[in-house]
Structure formats: C-alpha cells, structure tokens
C-alpha cells in the first residue's frame, strides 16, 4: 500500500482525514475492548454472584454494529476488501490505473447506496419507535449512525479513486500477498 495516508489509518487526505481516522480507530478499539469485558462481567456475574448483567446480549449486539460500521471507512481507505486478483497478470500495465479508478468508483456507488438506504431505514425506525425487546434500546439512532459511517466509507472510496487519478496510489500486480486475513 503506497498511499501516503494508508499507514496512519487516515480515511482520506489532509488533517481532517487523519483526524477522522484516528477517532474511528479509537472508537472501534474502545468498543471491541468493552464488548470483551462486558461478556466477561456478564458471565462471571452470573456464575459467581448469580447476578448477570440485564440484557447484556442486546448491548453486545449494538456494540458489534458500532464496531463493524466504524471500521468500514478504515477498511475501505486501505482497499482492504477481499478481491480476486488472479487476473492482474493479464491486465496491461497501462490499463491498470483506469481499472482501479473504475473499481473504486463502482465500490463508492455501492457504499453510497448502502448509506442512503440505511438513512431511509433510520427514518422508519425513528418514526415507528423501533426498540429491542428487553432493554427497549431504540434502533433509530444506530441505523442513522451506521448510515453516516457508510457515507464516510463512500468518501474514503472516492478518495482512493482520486489518489489513483493523481498518481498518489500506484496500481500494481497484487496477486501476491493481498492480506485478506480471513481464513
């Protein structure tokens, strides 16, 4: 990853992108740590003191949502989504730049639609007071936040496209070592 900003987890160029990336990183780090501690406290509370944390599982659910959607711009800025890159050998060097710009724009379109539709869903959640069964946690604020995060990921994706346009990112044969870390 040769982008000038990818290493610092900035989600796009400039101080704002760095700052946003740092905030998101801090949020997901704190959130994941809290998820872990919450499970530990819930289970040990139940086992040792017969007093589990009421509705812990619903809290876990929303903490996980925050984790995934806040990390989405970070993944996107790094071009961290899993791709099949075995055709890279067959793409002419000259066409690679154009290919990457096209892919980034298409990805931005998909993320943009997700952001838009999550926003629409958040309107419905707020209007109908959608809440969870046990703790009555409202869905609306979360759908709205997730929509905003998907929007940020869209911006990050457009920034990636711009990087390629300006030559700040260079497309090269990645069919080795693209770190998916998935399996």
């Amino acid at each position, binding site marked *: 990853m040769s982008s000038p900003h990818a290493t610092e987890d900035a989600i796009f160029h400039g101080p704002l992108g760095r700052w946003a990336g740092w905030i998101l990183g801090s949020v997901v780090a704190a959130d994941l740590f809290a998820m872990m501690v919450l499970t530990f406290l819930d289970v040990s509370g*139940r086992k040792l003191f*017969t*007093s*589990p944390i*009421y*509705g*812990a*599982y*619903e809290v876990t659910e929303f903490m996980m949502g925050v984790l995934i959607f806040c990390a989405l711009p970070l993944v996107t800025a790094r071009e961290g989504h899993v791709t099949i890159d075995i055709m890279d050998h067959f793409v002419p060097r000259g066409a690679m730049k154009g290919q990457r710009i096209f892919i980034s724009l298409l990805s931005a379109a998909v993320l943009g639609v997700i952001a838009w539709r999550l926003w629409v869903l958040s309107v*419905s959640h707020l209007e*109908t*007071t*959608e*809440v969870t*069964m*046990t703790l*009555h946690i409202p869905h609306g604020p979360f759908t709205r936040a997730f929509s905003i995060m998907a929007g940020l990921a869209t911006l990050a994706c457009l920034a990636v496209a711009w990087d390629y346009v300006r030559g700040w990112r260079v497309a090269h044969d990645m069919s080795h070592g693209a770190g998916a870390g998935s399996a």
Partner: protein
Amino acid sequence: QTVLTMSNWVPPAHPIVKYIMVPWANDVAKVTNGRVRIQMLPKPVARPNQHYDAVINGQVDVAWSTYGYQPERFQPYLIAELPQLGDTAVDNGVALWRTHKTHIEKAGVHKDVHLLGVMTHGPGLMHHSKKFILKPSDLQGQKIRVGGDVPRAIVQTFGGVVITQPAPKSFEVLSAGIADGIMFPTESLKSFKIASIVKYSTFVKGGLYSSSFWFAVNKNKFAGLSKADQDAIMKVSGEKFARLAGAGWDRADKEGVVAIKEAGGQIKPMSAEFVAELNKLTEKLELEYGAKMDAMGIDGKGTIKFFRAEVARVAAGK
C-alpha cells in the same frame, strides 16, 4: 392465477407452519377456486422483527411475526401478554381479534398493511429444572430465562434472577444451567427439545403470560386482487383465522403435554398464595398498560374489560 409469496421464520415442521399457515393457505386456494395460491419460501426473507417492514415494502407478500419483538410499535396488541387471561389459545386469540376490531384498530397501527388476522399462543407456564415453583418464595434467587416485559415483571417481583438470552438458545441456556427455569407454553418444550431438562412445570388459571402475533398481507398486493377474491380470503381470515390459529396452538400445547409426560415431567397448579400475589401484580400491569393506551387515545381500562369479557364469551362458545 395470483401467487402470493409467504415467509415463515420458523422451521417447516413448527406448529405455526404445520397447523396454522399451511391449512390457511389451503383454505385460501379452496375459497378462491385456485385463483390465489400461497407459496411458502424455502427460507425467511428477514429477521423475525423485520417481517412487518418486509410486508410493507413488498419484499414478501404475506408474513406473520411476534408483536413483542417490537414492543413500542405494537404496544396496544401486547394486551394479550397480561397474566391470567384465557385458558386456551382460541379464547385469547379470538378475544384479541375482537378487541382489535372494537378498540384498537382505530389507532391505525396496521394502516400500512392489510391485516389478515391476529393470534396468541397458549397460556404460558413456569418450567423449572430442579423444583416446582409453588409458593412465591420458591422463585427467590432462581435464574429464569424470559422474553418480554410481562414474564420479566413476574420473575423480578418474586425475587428471581432474569436471564435474557435469545429464545433459540433455550436448550443451550437450560442444559448448561445458565438458567434454572424458563417461561413458555407447553408447546415450546417440544419445539425447543427441552422437556427432558425442565421436568417441573407449574401453572395458574389463565396462564402467567402469552404472546400475540400479527398476520398480514402487502396492501397493494391485496388491493390488486378482485373484490370476490378479497372477500373470499377474508372469509377464512380475521376471526376465522384467530380460531384456526388458536386451535393449532392448543393442539401443539397438547402435544407439548404429551412430550412432558414422556420425558417424566409433571405439571402442577401454583398455590393459592402465589395466585393471590400474582393478582396484585396483574392489577399493576393492567394499570401500566391502561395508562399507555390512554396516552394513545385508546380507553385503556375499557379495552382490558372488553378483552376479559370476550375471553369469557369465547370460552362459553360464543
């Protein structure tokens, strides 16, 4: 021929599908002379609490789900969760439909769909893995898995510990001793395969709680049918559906009782002392429900009174 797709979020062998939805779909085919056919999807289109929106937005044509999964949205219909109502699912379900027609419908909760019917499952019992819950003090310190506000209020009022885990985890939660007991209609002991774990069941007349369900079709899809077909479908829906569904649930409860017996479990009534304490709680829950209804412009007290009167009427065969 019009094909209406239907989504079920329980397995095909579940009583809701077997005893309620498939018979209803057959009725529809019969009364419309095959002009309307219900097609069951192999998999649910969305999570249980998303089915209502899925019907509104046309992801699927026909669906049903539990009111309690969206407690704020469907508050008026949670009346059927109150303790000590009817002794059968038919009594409660038909009473809920009539209450919907007379008192709740005008609040417009279901304005975005065409409501085909409502139903309730049978009376909820207390099932325990180690002992009978007979006296109020028996519940002290016991870990009970519950879903919904009424069961939770019961457990908390009597000094129990509320365990909140998703219903599909019931087997895991009980077999691991994460919970000592659970509140369910007898049907669920068979569905969730837990009859051999919780062998001590106790009940009160009218049940400790129940759950209510909506059953609806997409508005445009329904409007697109001919008037004759619409009328024909409604002839096997509404109160007729509440009866069909109630009978399905009651049949499933009977099978649950058989499963309990086969697993060596027993069912006992709770003591008069428990019932006396429960009466006080029921009164409090009714006040709470009534206040919420009043805020929505529905006569809370009157609604509850009407519901109880209808339960008695249905039980008397009316």
